[in-house]
């Protein structure tokens, strides 16, 4: 871990905009030094607003406080917070070359020319953009811009790295590649990072802990594994993957769910319930079956069995008890979650 890494603490941070929109309800959040946190949630849930409050681009409402390493930063301006920030549109300076963009923060900090040169080379090499150093910004592809934006943010050795949907503007294959590069980079640097996305697979891949948000609240905080397998409520369960409601386990206090890949197709004698195949989506490594078991909602099952399933067939399904997700029904509209 990076010895200079900073821990972050937010207490009671809320945001009401001038027009009366309450983008964030009062919330608490602690980020450990060196940790990568992903803010995950649907569009408009307040991820960007929370990130901008941490950055210092927005002020929190009265009563909220922000600490970097126990130091109260609430009223410190963004330019004094020593952060690195990557914007969705990159926001590279069009009046400067790639190299000038990268060293901008170093020049502002009045580093010696020697040190600036050295850091520049280091960044260019780390992001593999040596050949682009003298290009103008409008001569770069989307992926290259992304690398420059990252290099520029990291070059200043920030206490905290903030990334707002940095991959959204890229096409799918590039996104996958950059995602793993960013993941490696964050691990290597050990900078405390907060990464915003509405893409659950991006969140799973990058996060030490995921913060799931909905309607200005934090709904659940946990490791990707926890969030996926032990979601706190139906919203989280649905947001981070597909879930089915179990057709045969009824209980008014609990909702019993399972994930498509946790269902097994078994012999009729071992099955918990039978269902008719309504459609088959063959994906190569697996097949996704849509099943009808006399329920309002269809059930989705993923299987890797080497069997040519056909529409109309009837199959038997079994889900191991420990793979069931049980949710208290009263938990569905759960209020803000206490930070553990």
């Amino acid at each position: 871990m990076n010895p200079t890494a900073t821990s972050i603490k937010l207490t009671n941070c809320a945001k009401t905009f001038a027009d009366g929109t309450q983008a964030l309800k009062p919330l608490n959040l602690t980020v450990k030094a060196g940790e990568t946190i992903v803010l995950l949630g649907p569009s408009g849930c307040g991820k960007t607003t929370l990130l901008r409050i941490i950055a210092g681009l927005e002020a929190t409402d009265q009563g909220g406080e922000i600490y970097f390493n126990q130091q109260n930063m609430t009223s410190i301006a963004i330019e004094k917070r020593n952060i690195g920030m990557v914007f969705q549109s990159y926001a590279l300076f069009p009046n400067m070359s790639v190299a000038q963009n990268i060293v901008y923060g170093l020049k502002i900090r009045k580093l010696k020319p020697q040190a600036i040169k050295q850091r520049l080379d280091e960044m260019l090499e780390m992001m593999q953009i040596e050949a682009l150093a003298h290009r103008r910004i409008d001569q770069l592809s989307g992926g290259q811009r992304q690398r420059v934006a990252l290099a520029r943010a990291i070059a200043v050795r920030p206490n905290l790295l903030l990334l707002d949907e940095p991959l959204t503007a890229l096409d799918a294959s590039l996104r996958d590649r950059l995602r793993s590069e960013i993941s490696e980079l964050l691990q290597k640097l050990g900078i405390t990072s907060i990464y915003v996305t509405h893409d659950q697979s991006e969140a799973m891949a990058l996060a030490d802990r995921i913060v799931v948000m909905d309607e200005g609240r934090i709904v659940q905080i946990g490791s990707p594994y926890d969030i996926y397998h032990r979601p706190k409520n139906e919203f989280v369960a649905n947001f981070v993957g597909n879930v089915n409601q179990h057709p045969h386990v009824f209980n008014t206090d609990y909702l019993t769910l399972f994930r498509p890949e946790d269902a097994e197709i078994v012999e009729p004698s071992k099955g918990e319930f039978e269902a008719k195949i309504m459609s088959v989506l063959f994906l190569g490594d697996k097949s996704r079956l849509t099943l009808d078991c006399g329920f309002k909602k269809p059930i989705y099952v993923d299987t890797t069995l080497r069997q040519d399933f056909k529409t109309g067939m009837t199959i038997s399904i079994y889900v191991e008890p420990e793979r069931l997700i049980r949710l208290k029904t009263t938990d569905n509209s759960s209020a803000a979650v206490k930070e553990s």
Partner: protein
Amino acid sequence: MRNKWLFRAQLIFTLLVCSFLIVPVILSALAGITQNFFLGIKSGITLHWLGEVWQLYSGTIYLSLLIAIWCLIATLAIGVPAAYVLAKQNGKLARFIEEIIVLPIAIPGLAIALALIINYGGFRDFRTSWGFILVGHILYTLPFMLRSVLAVLSSTNFHELEESAASLGASFWQRFFTIILPNAKSGILAGALMVVTLSIGEFNLTWMLHTPETKTLPVGLADSYASMRLEVASAYTLIFFVMIIPLLIAMQKLSQKTNKV
């Protein structure tokens, strides 16, 4: 075949229109360097008239340049920050202020001049100084500077650029000088050329605001047309062209360049 004829007809028409506009200009310029306009160019070419203009009217040329430069300084100092603030705000008040500043474009110069005289004409020292004309010119040219800068600022996402500069540690003034100004450069330059050209050529307002002691070039021109030999007036026009045409060409070049980007 028909297309070809159509093209030729259009070409001839265009050339005719151009010559209709340009021939008087050329003749006028020529008249300024002929011995005797009524005898024509065969009477000989001379710089005599230019010399005479210089003797009689060099004061107006200096004054025009002086006013244009101060007008440029003032519109830069007021217009650029104002455009920045207006681009940053998107409330109703900002739009209202923008409308007010831009209003002088729609008002006839004479009306602006009259308003100035009614309001400030009583301050004698001010009224008789060229500062009075300068104020009129600033009012008249400011909208062009403002519009021009505002257009560039609203076409770049400068708000986000500024935020990212701030995240890298840049203070307000550092951001203003390293990010805002360089990225608004094309608009500022276009606005500046426009302001200087308009100020040097301005007649309506200036004619109302001037005193015998504060004549600008266009006012002097009108004066010479009314009271001088045709050759002197023409030589004077020639000088005016020499001053204004490079500015117009620069403006044209600049707009071509920014259109390409």
